[in-house]
């Protein structure tokens, strides 16, 4: 399925969308940019930390609420669109549900296990308890309310057409986000035969019964890194930080890098892919799944 079709069919206005669940790696930028091109509105974005992507969606006016632990630009600092939205309601005001990394993970585990909350040993003594209605103190525990995304969008190294995704490297809160979500959209560097994915069922990230779309989108997480495929494009984050400092600068960036791009392929043509491509291969030692 094409990215345009997947976003059009499965991420309507007002959706609660989990993205960037592996933190700084495997961020589904291509999916985010398609949300912008389709002028999606009133999204509730869910994630642990967001390295630039949520900032871009906020600047583009797609977002009503953010439910996350950190939102900015990891190597550069503050998120300028996030600041403008919170401080000056530019382009419009947004609601923020502050979490810590641990509490957003537990909020998703609560939803995955269909309980209203999970008790936790974190957030005690933090003003997050004062400003986020989804967390509350109960004795010497905190109750973290369930957060259930309508859809989780995950970028992975490889997947088959049936939705069996192989992802590796640190996965942050990807598993609980996918299990908590009603549906999962998988975007992948490589679309592979099911012989590849089924050769290692332990590496299959989520049950195919949750996956509603598989999009083959090479470079779909640029400028974030993909273990075995792409290095992080630090310069692009720096450039985005500089250009997004002003609203005008952001809008010029948005036009040039998102709105004027018909699709991801066009975007990738402007990237020096070869300088980012990982060339030293480090294959994992196979596991023997023999049975007889």
């Amino acid at each position: 399925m094409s990215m345009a079709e997947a976003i059009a069919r499965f991420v309507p206005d007002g959706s609660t969308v989990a993205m960037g669940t592996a933190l700084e790696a495997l961020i589904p930028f291509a999916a985010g940019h398609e949300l912008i091109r389709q002028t999606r509105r009133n999204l509730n974005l869910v994630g642990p930390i967001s390295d630039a992507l949520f900032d871009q969606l906020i600047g583009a006016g797609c977002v009503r609420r953010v439910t996350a632990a950190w939102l900015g630009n990891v190597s550069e600092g503050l998120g300028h669109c996030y600041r403008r939205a919170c401080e000056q309601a530019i382009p419009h005001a947004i609601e923020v549900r502050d979490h810590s990394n641990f509490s957003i993970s537990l909020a998703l585990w609560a939803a995955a296990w269909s309980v209203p909350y999970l008790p936790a040993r974190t957030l005690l003594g933090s003003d997050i308890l004062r400003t986020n209605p989804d967390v509350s103190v109960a004795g010497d525990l905190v109750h973290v309310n369930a957060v259930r995304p309508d859809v989780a969008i995950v970028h992975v190294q490889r997947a088959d057409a049936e939705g069996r995704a192989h992802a590796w490297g640190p996965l942050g809160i990807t598993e609980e986000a996918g299990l908590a979500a009603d549906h999962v959209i998988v975007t992948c560097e490589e679309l592979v035969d099911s012989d590849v994915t089924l050769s290692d069922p332990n590496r299959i990230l989520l049950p195919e019964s949750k996956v509603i779309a598989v999009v083959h989108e090479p470079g779909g997480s640029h400028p974030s890194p993909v273990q075995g495929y792409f290095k992080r494009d630090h310069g692009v984050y720096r450039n985005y930080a500089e250009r997004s400092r002003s609203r005008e600068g952001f809008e010029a960036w948005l036009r040039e890098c998102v709105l004027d791009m018909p699709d991801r392929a066009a975007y990738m043509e402007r990237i020096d892919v070869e300088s980012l491509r990982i060339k030293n291969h480090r294959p994992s030692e196979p596991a023997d799944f023999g049975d007889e």
Partner: protein
Amino acid sequence: MSDFTPQEMMVSVASREIRDGDLVFVGMRLPILAYAVARNSHAPTARGLFEVGLMRDQPASAFLGTMGDPPNVVGALWATRMSNVMALMTQGNVDLGFIGGAEVDRFGNLNTSYVGDPAHPSVKLPGSGGGADIAILSRRWVTLMTHEKRRLVERVSYVTSPGYGDGTPGWRKRNGLLGGGPSAIITTLGVFRFPEGGGEAMVESVHPGHTLDEVREHTGWDLHVADGVSETSAPTEAELTAIRQFDPEGFWTR
């Protein structure tokens, strides 16, 4: 002694906070360099834990823009979920954590969320990330900050990551926080140390080339100075060599 930048000074001081054998919850930027320096000098058996879901012993062999960069995964001892890493921290397995902050007060409370009224902030900061978790759950933690009056304030307007709260004895225990709390604030001018069991930050040492008056001038609270406040020992050649090896272009330290 060769020249060094304020950031290099901070990294070398931070590295000395790491004890051999520690399991260190490593943040980004300067702490990741401090961990590398410590591993290569006095803490060869320390291990690092990263909230993305990684455990390492050796520092990554290449520059890291983020903890999720591919070199940080090669040689990792465990690539897992964040909630598993947090499980270790709730169990008191994390000896030392590093937290970056925008604002800190004399009781070690950090604000990385809002300047001004959270409903109408004058500045919206990125938020907690793992900061609140580390502040609440690690056995001890350290924060690194540029030394400015607007950053070292009497009381933070919003406590993202709690230190010793209102500074009254037993505040953390009364509020159910499992971890030990902050042990030091490392700035571009000097080092503040918290007393055992918590309380107010006291100036422990001033970095070479700076004075106590300078520290006082740029601190937002009435300074308390430890007896025998000293000059911070400058980075050693070995420390500087390690720092520059792991940050060759001075991405974090220039």
